[in-house]
């Protein structure tokens, strides 16, 4: 290390090291968020443009209307349970892939849905769930009356789980793959029965992957609107639908921005609460 670097030299070093990262983050995260923040404090003009006066009126409107509070509650609820189902399915799946002889093939199968456009995949579920669809074909073949599966909350859940499962499996797989399995044998050797051995020796090592997968799934699952739109038949309004509506046909960008900020604040609050339960280490890990 050279001593007594001049301020200019230190600036140069900073620009060379964290400079590029800071630049991209600023361009694609910080500035858009600031724009949205400003927009959320403005008002809707007669042509749908953003105009003064500035104020908190959009936020007041959001929280004073029980409908909007219900919408965000429902979004968090559906997002949460979808994530729980994804974790229940994805956790064993990641282990299965990691110890399989054909892990390359299985990983490819997990990734293959991404080769098709997201919208088309959601439409595919309509084919499955609709009145004369695949599922009802199966049900009637067994002699039961056809079920009303579309639109339904069930269809929304199924499609959400299907869509976001890979985002959970892939980071978890990366964590599981690194585990040294002789640690499981070491735990047996030291007197732990199989379930205990897994819980004490292996599970803690998957927690970071579990958490990364949770974030990657929960946040988009809360914010999604296409799935609820197409499979919920417009009956299930989520926060994503609300925002889309405000930016689209309602032409109220200011209120849409405010709703977006509320969603973001909710997610960050959740993360912060989680980190608090983990103590100081948790906060550090989160970052």
């Amino acid at each position: 290390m050279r001593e007594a670097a001049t301020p200019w030299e230190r600036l140069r070093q900073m620009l060379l090291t964290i400079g590029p990262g800071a630049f991209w983050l600023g361009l694609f995260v910080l500035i858009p968020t600031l724009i949205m923040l400003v927009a959320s404090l403005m008002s809707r003009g007669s042509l749908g443009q953003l105009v003064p006066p500035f104020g908190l009126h959009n936020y007041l409107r959001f929280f004073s209307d029980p409908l909007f509070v219900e919408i965000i509650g429902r979004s968090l609820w559906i997002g949460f349970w979808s994530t729980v189902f994804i974790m229940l399915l994805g956790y064993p799946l990641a282990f299965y892939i990691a110890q399989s002889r054909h892990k390359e093939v299985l990983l490819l199968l997990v990734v293959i849905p991404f080769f098709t456009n997201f919208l088309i995949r959601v439409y595919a579920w309509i084919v499955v769930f609709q009145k004369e669809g695949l599922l009802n074909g199966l049900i009637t073949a067994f002699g039961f009356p056809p079920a009303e599966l579309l639109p339904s909350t069930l269809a929304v859940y199924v499609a959400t789980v299907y869509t976001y499962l890979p985002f959970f499996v892939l980071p978890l797989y990366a964590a599981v793959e690194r585990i040294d399995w002789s640690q499981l044998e070491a735990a047996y050797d030291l007197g732990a029965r199989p379930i205990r051995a897994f819980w004490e020796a292996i599970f803690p090592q998957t927690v970071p992957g579990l958490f990364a997968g949770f974030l990657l799934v929960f946040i988009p699952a809360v914010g999604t609107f296409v799935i609820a739109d197409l499979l919920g038949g417009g009956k299930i309004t989520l926060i994503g639908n609300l925002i889309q509506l405000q930016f689209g046909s309602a032409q109220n960008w200011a209120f849409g921005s405010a709703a977006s900020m509320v969603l973001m604040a909710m997610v960050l609050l959740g993360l912060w609460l989680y980190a608090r339960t983990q103590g100081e280490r948790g906060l550090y890990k989160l970052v």
Partner: protein
Amino acid sequence: MEPTLFRTRRDRKLGENMAVRLEGVTKRFGEQKAVDNVSLEIRDGEFFSLLGPSGCGKTTLLRMIAGFDTPDEGRVIIGGKDMTEVPPYLRPVNTVFQNYALFPHMTVEQNIAFGLRMKKMPRDEIARRVQWALELINLPGYEKRRTDQMSGGQRQRIALARALVNEPEVLLLDEPLSALDLKLRQELRVDLMNLQERLGITFIFVTHDQEEALVMSDRIAVMNKGRIEQLGPTEEIYELPKTAFVAKFIGDSNLIPAQALEPRKVRTPIGEFVLDDEDTLTPGQEVLLSIRPEKIRLFREKPNLPNVFRAKVDDIIYTGSENQYVLLADGQRLMCETLNQDIQEPGHEEFTYDEEVWVALTPEKLVVIQGGVEGSNPYA
């Protein structure tokens, strides 16, 4: 049991009881027999080594004693009880793994306490024993360290403490030193020997390093292709190899094909040799003679000894403490080692390239190996 010709290491008396007995143990992986009908007995308090090249089945054998693998045939008896089908968490043995297999998400203290915690031991008792174990391995004060911040040698010792703190009847060690550098390995050998002697626990030590096995063991089982080639006290394994494989794998050896002329006389490509009184052969029988390089004697003047012949110095390898000569006699190559003592008395001379020397093979040092040259190259 055959009479033991050599004593165990440091003249130790071993217990009469059997710590581990294997009866006709066989393990197949597909068509391949990883362990093929192995029977052996390991005594209480013994330092026992399973020695062999990679793939010889020594680790599989150890894993069956630990309970990670179940034999297809045969029985595993530990402490007098049949444990063939008993899962590893119910066996009175503990293992030190080759890669240590320490739990990365736990501190040193938590790693060592793991086995005691599984036994539901009271907390203060656990703390006391962990302290004892840390002192045992000379790492007191490291309780709160994370294992990934420690050196290979330290992790190795923590793995040892984690196993020993449970006071197992038998400690299984799967090549525990192979990942360390030479200097550390030599230190830990001595540490391990002292520890074993102090605690009186039976050690079963798997290694491919013949020097490691020779230095530490009371007895050694040399394994090859899933079978035991030879089992005996350390010195016996070195001095009286029973097969060409053992002669070549443990140390180095000159193997000379021979045909018996009389019960104690053979003909070889380099001349006719007399053998020790204890050897008796049927005339016409084909055998191999094995002699260790350091047991060949070289002279400038013809000595008045049996089994003397002429040879030419083909190559000299200087290793500092030794001079190694490659000799040629009637097309047969012989390796010979002499101590570099820098004195020129008869029997201690130094020789030069292409010099014609007199070679003497002491009859007692010529070991007769029945059976052919098959397996004489353990690395083939």
